[in-house]
């Protein structure tokens, strides 16, 4: 992974340029107009955030079983990225909603679910920051519970909201819209991998530094 880092960054930049071009050239959607283009920046991070939450939960479970720091470092990086991607989704979502439904927030099921999962992983980071020594084990427990919670959040939020008239969220996509969307998705995925690798690397260096510090006679 370490050797592939630079080439990955190059590919990522290429992807971004092409995504921007594709998005700029994509046709204007009839009702949403220019605002529809927010969708290219909303859908990929929203999906990746959920996958990242599950990834973090799995790595945390591995850490609890094996007690190997490597799993914990990946879990921490995934949790931070879950919050980052969640934040992107939670900013772009209401921008879309304002144009589509006239209000910033309507407790749309998917956005609500993103919001709740985002909350869980923000609390993960809070626990790590303020929990004191040993909080990496505790936050691993939280991440496992957060992951297991995803289906329940999905079910309950959907049932709760179907009590009210349903609003269509994702427009059916013709090919002209789909190609830039998938290029954009690939871009966000690659960005995720690059950031995750970099973050894990930082954590490894940090641990190495701590070890040197501990071994020294200071």
């Amino acid at each position, binding site marked *: 992974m370490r050797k592939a880092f630079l080439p990955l960054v190059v590919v990522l930049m290429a992807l971004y340029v092409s995504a921007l071009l594709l998005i700029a050239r994509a046709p204007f959607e009839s009702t949403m107009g220019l605002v529809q283009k927010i969708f290219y920046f909303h859908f990929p991070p929203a999906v990746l955030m959920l996958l990242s939450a599950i990834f973090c939960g799995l790595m945390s479970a591995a850490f609890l079983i094996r*007690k190997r720091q490597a799993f914990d470092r990946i879990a921490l990086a995934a949790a931070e990225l879950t919050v980052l991607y969640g934040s992107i989704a939670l900013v772009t979502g209401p921008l879309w909603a304002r144009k589509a439904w006239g209000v910033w927030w309507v407790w749309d099921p998917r956005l609500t679910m993103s919001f709740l999962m985002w909350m869980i992983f923000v609390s993960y980071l809070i626990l790590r920051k303020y929990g004191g*020594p*040993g909080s990496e084990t505790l936050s691993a427990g939280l991440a496992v519970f957060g992951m297991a919670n995803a289906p329940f959040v999905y079910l309950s939020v959907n049932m709760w909201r179907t009590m009210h008239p349903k609003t269509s969220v994702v427009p059916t996509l013709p090919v002209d819209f789909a190609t830039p969307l998938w290029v954009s998705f690939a871009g966000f995925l690659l960005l995720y991998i690059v950031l995750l690798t970099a973050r894990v690397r930082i954590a490894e260096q940090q641990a190495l530094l*701590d*070890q040197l*510090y*501990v071994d020294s006679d200071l």
Partner: protein
Amino acid sequence: MSVDFNELSIRELSRNYGRRRALSRVSMECRAGEVVGLLGPNGAGKSTLLSIVSTLSTASSGEVRYEGRTAAELGPHLRARIGVLSHELHLYPELTARENLMFFARLYGVTDAAAKASAALERASLGDRANDVVHGFSRGMRQRLALERALLHSPKLLLFDEPFTGLDDASTVALIARFKELRLSGRIVLVATHDLETAEEVLDRAAVLRDGRLVAVETDVRGLRRRYQAHLHSAVAAS
């Protein structure tokens, strides 16, 4: 299943909290019938070491073996053979002295719990206060009760954290006698303390810790005070 072991070996034991070194490559052996002291100022790693040996904490590296086997291999049965007297005493203040003893006796699966609890109350000289809640006890009374609580299930390995704190002179003499009994009955006893005066009377050997490292192992405990009083004091002053 009953677990028995006659030696405790601690090998290259380390525990870090980030950059803080609580314990660094400590190795030592203890055999049955020995009272081994852990000496050092606050923050030297005594409590961390006891905590790992008692199975409550895990080491960052290194291992503890109970006559060749690890805690993971032995499981919950190992804990039935360990008695811990912690600084926090492990007593419920809302319960009476007898209720505290009975609860832990049953939890440890002690047979004949009621008789053992009564005997323990007598040993702690708390026979007449048996049905009073612990809340109203003095530190010394609690300390005596906590000691009996830790010994209730006749553990093989005893881990004492500052057992002399808060004891009056008579209780200290009684505790010193108790240590001699434990030695004769073939227990392994680890005592963390900074009370060098009393330590000289009860210890067979002493391991001196400082900043998580094993500084020295003293096989002759007489004169400990003379040699280490300054050491402990300077370390306290430095921290």
